[in-house]
């Protein structure tokens, strides 16, 4: 049965596949829950500074480890900082990390994957080999080693630049954290994107509509940009949605091991790792970041599954 082929007898606005996918997605309750959570997350991440009831760094040494109350809805931590404010700021970190990691990984993946898929031959073999190599290095190892080796070097360089130019751009190390910690995470997360894009390109390259476009004499560039890329985007979106969640978890894992975001910058990972030490006495210190991280992960899972169903519908012929 053709469920999607609508007979355009009546005058209806045209429905693109994107609109169609959105409609399918909108019917998926779980995906919508995920999307709503992600929207909240993004909102909080963007407007965090205006939302936090307290400065996330302000300490009150006489109000340490307070249980949740009206004044501090999620309590305070061991330095008397407001946990809610820190969780909100953690959303910033998480979002930024997720985006930075995913964007870098995606760019590497798309470029290498598309090249491999389009040109094939030795380039393809080389890229695929490289994905094998990368995937066969335990990722924690790679991140830690890169972190302990490259990061200090870049920090050195920036410090030197700062001392020479006194340009404040060079001063703040948080950027190095983000670029390097998460750049290195991107270095381990790109292979799936590359493989996906390659597979997409390979499969779309042989779709009849691409052959048709060639038969029409359309130039390669047009074929790439209007026929291949737009059709490869769907699975990529699904992968990216899953990747964003994975990146958040990775960030927290590395922060947990102490190679992630530096204190006092809050990240859910280092909050969890702090909370784990004292959770028997102050469970809220663990619960707050862990639940939020869990929610974010689940939200991306929901959305990813929903997108997968919406963008790659089965049974439509």
């Amino acid at each position, binding site marked *: 049965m053709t469920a999607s082929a609508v007979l355009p007898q009546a005058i209806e606005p045209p429905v693109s596949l994107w609109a169609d996918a959105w409609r399918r997605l909108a019917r998926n309750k779980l995906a919508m829950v995920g999307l709503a959570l992600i929207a909240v997350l993004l909102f909080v991440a963007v407007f965090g500074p205006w939302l936090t009831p307290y400065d996330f760094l302000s300490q009150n040494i006489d109000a340490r480890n307070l249980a949740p109350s009206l004044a501090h809805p999620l309590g305070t931590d061991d330095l008397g900082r407001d946990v809610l404010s820190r969780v909100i700021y953690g959303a910033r970190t998480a979002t930024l990390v997720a985006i930075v990691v995913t964007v870098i990984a995606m760019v590497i993946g798309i470029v290498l994957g598309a090249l491999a898929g389009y040109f*094939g031959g030795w380039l393809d073999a080389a890229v695929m*080999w490289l994905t*094998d*190599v990368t*995937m*066969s*290095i*335990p*990722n*924690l*190892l790679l991140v*830690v*080693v*890169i972190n*302990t*080796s*490259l990061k*200090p*070097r870049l920090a050195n360089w920036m410090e030197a630049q700062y001392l020479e130019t006194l340009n404040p751009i060079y001063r703040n190390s948080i950027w190095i954290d983000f670029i390097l910690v998460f750049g290195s995470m991107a270095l381990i997360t790109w292979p799936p994107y590359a493989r996906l894009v390659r597979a997409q390109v390979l499969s779309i390259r042989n779709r009849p509509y691409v052959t048709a476009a060639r038969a029409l004499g359309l130039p390669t560039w047009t074929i790439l940009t209007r026929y291949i890329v737009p059709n490869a985007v769907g699975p990529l979106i699904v992968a990216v949605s899953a990747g964003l969640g994975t990146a958040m*978890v990775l960030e*927290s*894992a590395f922060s*947990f*091991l102490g190679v992630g975001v530096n204190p006092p910058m809050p990240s859910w990972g280092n909050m*969890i*790792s702090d909370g*784990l030490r004292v*959770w*028997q006495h102050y469970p809220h210190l*663990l619960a707050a970041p*862990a639940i939020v*991280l*869990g*929610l974010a*992960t*689940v939200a991306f*899972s*929901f959305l990813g*599954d929903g997108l997968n169903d919406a963008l790659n519908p*089965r*049974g439509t012929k």
Partner: protein
Amino acid sequence: MLRYVIRRLVLWVPTVLLVLLGVYALAFYGAGDPIKLIFLRAPGDVAYNPARIEAIREAAGLNQPFLVQFGNYVLNLVQGNFGNSLVSGRSVWRMISAAAPVSAQLGLLAILLTAVVAIPLGVLAALKQNTALDYAILGSALFLWAIPAYVAGPLLMVLLIVLLPDITVPYGWGGLFDVRIILPLLVLAFQPIALIIRQTRAAVIEVMTEDYVRTARAKGVPELAVALRHILRPVLTPVVTQLGLIMITIVNGAIFVELVFGLPGLGRLTVSALLNNDYPVILAITLIGSFLVMASNLLVDVVYPLLDPRATDARATK
């Protein structure tokens, strides 16, 4: 098949060399001086004496140029010599061979547990698609997926200690048939289980719409037999191809699980080697890690045609 396997194995050599070179270079140029690290880690007024440190470094062969060191390393490696730990001076091979069985047993058991638990649950969820049972299974899977091992581990353990004060605390390693393995095993298997439940469910839902399932029903095959004979078997194929992914999940999960539960396996060794920049150990572990991933990929590729007779058909190249 043998030729195929050999060809793949030959490809491992440059892969492994590249991986080793990369890690070696990072460790060599980046992470600082392991000898100094040993000394400066000790609190208080230590015997910081440049001449002494230089002498120690020389004794460990760490004063040579990069390529010479790397070359020596590879040469030793070819002879089966993994070198000695910079920190303890013990043979890396001995350390690895003591740690690897623990991780291997735990990991294999986790894979087994995953298969035993996740595949039936995934099938069940798919067969009862969109029922409360389906939502419960899927929900639990997502829940397990969302809790990192380093949160689940301590929580479970301390809960156990608090709830059952009389029980032997699941800390440390007592072998495969020791009760202490249960908790780490569960925590290690959480994520693979979640992964495989979702994969299996999706695969079953896909297979259920296949024509041959309808054929089976049209033959009057009972539902259970349809599920077991006609749905499960084709589902296993895509699930088995996830072995590589499961392996990666388990290798990474093992680090946290071994840390949390005090298991003397490779994961724990990894962390301590990383923190000490003990690169003979780091390299050996990298070697094992990449070997595992490559081996599981190869295994999947070799097993695939055995599971799916269609794969023996023509594979079109260009």
